[in-house]
């Protein structure tokens, strides 16, 4: 190998690592076919090996239970069940008896047959099960030959490289000695990937055969688990850059540690809620990890954009219930369908529009096609009993729209009541302030709702008549424009006069140069992407409004 080389894979856990590569060696088991004369003796060897394998798996299960939790440890329980599987054992027995061959060969053949069955399925999730079958079979084969497959680790901290890591191998790794792991194959659906995420080990999988051919034991490497990149033998410049990133990452984690659990309170004692914006269930982990006080904007669009057809009430209910339960009584504000403009789903069959930002979108679609809206509202109200839900409507411009919305809500609630389905009568109802119209008549809208949430991206584009996707007019699009700040302040005053609270969930919420301005306006809540929560908390804690 000469010079620096970069390889792309899939990052399954975001973090950096710099260190020497250690190639993971597994016991090289001899599975060659040998003729035997006493099948009963072979079968006894198999049953002794199985017993030993189950014992080992029990130990791994217990280690996993401590390190990655019950849900993730369950896979090893499944492995134990797979070892006892009737068809699997019948296959081993048939091969030994029918062909008069050795146990190692029979187990390996059986593993290949079952792995082949899984690998040929058209479902990525099931394809990953092939690894599980091979994993348990290799363990049995190792037990047959009395070799221990879980040993042979170097003394210093290293980046582990393997063709593929079986789940049991991943958990068996001594966390204290592993900087990162890199695999040539494997999918992000594999249990190994899931375990890596839970063990907080930076990991890049599927870097490919070329990597496998180039990599040598002891070579220096940089792993970027965010980008899914592995650099072998980095040049001094790259190495320095990676060291800086690594240090920055550690600093961020330190900040997290220091600020976690602290209040969002200014020097003079003004407090503000800091919530997180998310666009799918995958982000809930990040919300909790960054210690957000709730979810200020849950974009429900992903349910529509990920599907080829309208998501059913059950699908939506499941998703809403999941987020509410995960947040355990912390506020979760779910915004109803905000599709149209730059977010399109084919099955809605929306006409092409000259000016989609001002076209049939968001609440306008819901009011034009109430059956779509009702399905979502039913799912939301049904989920409302599982946590602290707020429902928020986008793109509001008038009082009459809001009246129509509430009439539909009442209809939905009445039919739930009739069917004897529970919902929370006190579910907070709010609207986005993202059109200048809504801000200007905020005195009329505030008495009708529990809260406002300012969507600064659309509010900016509509107020300044600036297309936010047109880079040529960027210099005209001053996001700190006085007009926008006045509209926000006006909405805040009107909200508070009428007993409603007001938050900001657009990009400006994360703009630290405006935090003090927003606090002076009396903004009650700021909702930002999860990774900004602690930076914003840090900023809030440095502000003194009396100074």
């Amino acid at each position: 190998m000469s010079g620096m080389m970069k390889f792309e894979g899939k990052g399954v856990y975001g973090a950096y690592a710099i260190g020497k590569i250690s190639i993971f060696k597994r016991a090289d088991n001899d599975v060659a076919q040998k003729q035997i004369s006493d099948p009963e003796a072979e079968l006894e060897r198999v049953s002794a090996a199985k017993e030993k394998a189950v014992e080992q798996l029990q130990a791994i299960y217990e280690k996993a239970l401590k390190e990655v939790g019950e849900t993730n440890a369950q896979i090893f329980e499944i492995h134990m069940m797979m070892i006892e599987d009737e068809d699997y054992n019948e296959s081993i027995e048939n091969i030994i008896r029918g062909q008069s061959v050795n146990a190692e060969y029979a187990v390996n053949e059986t593993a290949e047959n079952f792995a082949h069955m899984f690998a040929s399925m058209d479902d990525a999730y099931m394809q990953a099960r092939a690894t599980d079958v091979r994993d348990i079979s290799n363990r049995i084969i190792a037990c047959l030959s009395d070799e221990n497959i879980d040993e042979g680790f170097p003394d210093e901290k290293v980046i582990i490289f393997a063709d593929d890591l079986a789940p049991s191998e991943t958990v068996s790794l001594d966390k204290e000695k592993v900087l990162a792991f890199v695999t040539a194959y494997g999918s992000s659906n594999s249990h190994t990937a899931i375990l890596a995420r839970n063990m907080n080990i930076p990991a890049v999988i599927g870097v490919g055969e070329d990597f496998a051919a180039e990599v040598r034991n002891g070579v220096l490497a940089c792993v970027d688990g965010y980008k899914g990149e592995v650099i072998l033998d980095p040049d001094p410049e790259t190495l320095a850059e990676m060291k800086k990133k690594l240090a920055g990452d550690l600093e961020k984690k330190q900040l997290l540690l220091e600020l976690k659990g602290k209040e969002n309170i200014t020097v003079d004692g003004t407090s503000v809620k800091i919530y997180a914006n998310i666009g799918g269930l995958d982000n809930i982990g990040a919300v909790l990890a960054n210690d957000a006080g709730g979810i200020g904007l849950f974009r429900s669009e992903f349910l529509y954009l990920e599907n080829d057809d309208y998501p059913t009430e059950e699908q939506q209910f499941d998703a809403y219930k999941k987020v509410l339960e995960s947040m355990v009584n912390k506020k979760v504000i779910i915004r109803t369908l905000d599709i149209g403009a730059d977010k399109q789903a084919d099955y809605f069959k929306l006409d092409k529009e000259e000016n989609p930002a001002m076209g049939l979108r968001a609440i306008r679609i819901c009011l034009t096609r109430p059956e779509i809206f009702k399905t979502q509202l039913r799912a939301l109200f049904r989920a409302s009993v599982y946590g602290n839900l707020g429902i928020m409507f986008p793109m509001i411009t008038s009082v009459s729209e809001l009246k129509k919305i509430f009439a539909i809500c009442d209809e939905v609630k009445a039919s739930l009541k009739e069917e004897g389905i529970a919902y929370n009568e006190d579910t907070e109802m709010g609207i986005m302030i993202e059109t200048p119209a809504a801000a200007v008549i905020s005195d009329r809208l505030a008495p009708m709702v529990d809260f406002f949430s300012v969507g600064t991206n659309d509010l900016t584009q509509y107020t300044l008549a600036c297309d936010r996707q047109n880079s040529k007019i960027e210099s005209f699009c001053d996001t700190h424009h006085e007009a926008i700040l006045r509209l926000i302040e006006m909405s805040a005053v009107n909200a508070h006069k009428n007993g409603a609270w007001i938050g900001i969930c657009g990009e400006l919420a994360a703009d630290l140069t405006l935090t003090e301005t927003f606090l002076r306006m009396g903004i009650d809540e700021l909702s930002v992407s999860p990774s900004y929560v602690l930076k914003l908390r840090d900023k809030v804690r440095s502000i003194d409004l009396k100074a």
Partner: protein
Amino acid sequence: MKQFNYTIKDAVGIHARPAGQLAKVAKECGSTVTIEKDGKSVNATKLMMLMGMGIKCGDTITVTVEGETEEAAAKAIEEFLTANL
């Protein structure tokens, strides 16, 4: 014999973990539990074959329970499916 249909609601379908749990419930219930989809059927205690059916979200399976405990067993299986899949 007890028989009922069930439509899978879990987003990933009968994958490893729930298949393992289902096999466990089927083993402990004392009756023979058969799962059928698209003309293919499998004994629910057979974990590998059960996973091999590739039952996905939206698929409707037919569950047949036969044996002395079939009444209670069918109920247990149905409860398990509703709660987990």
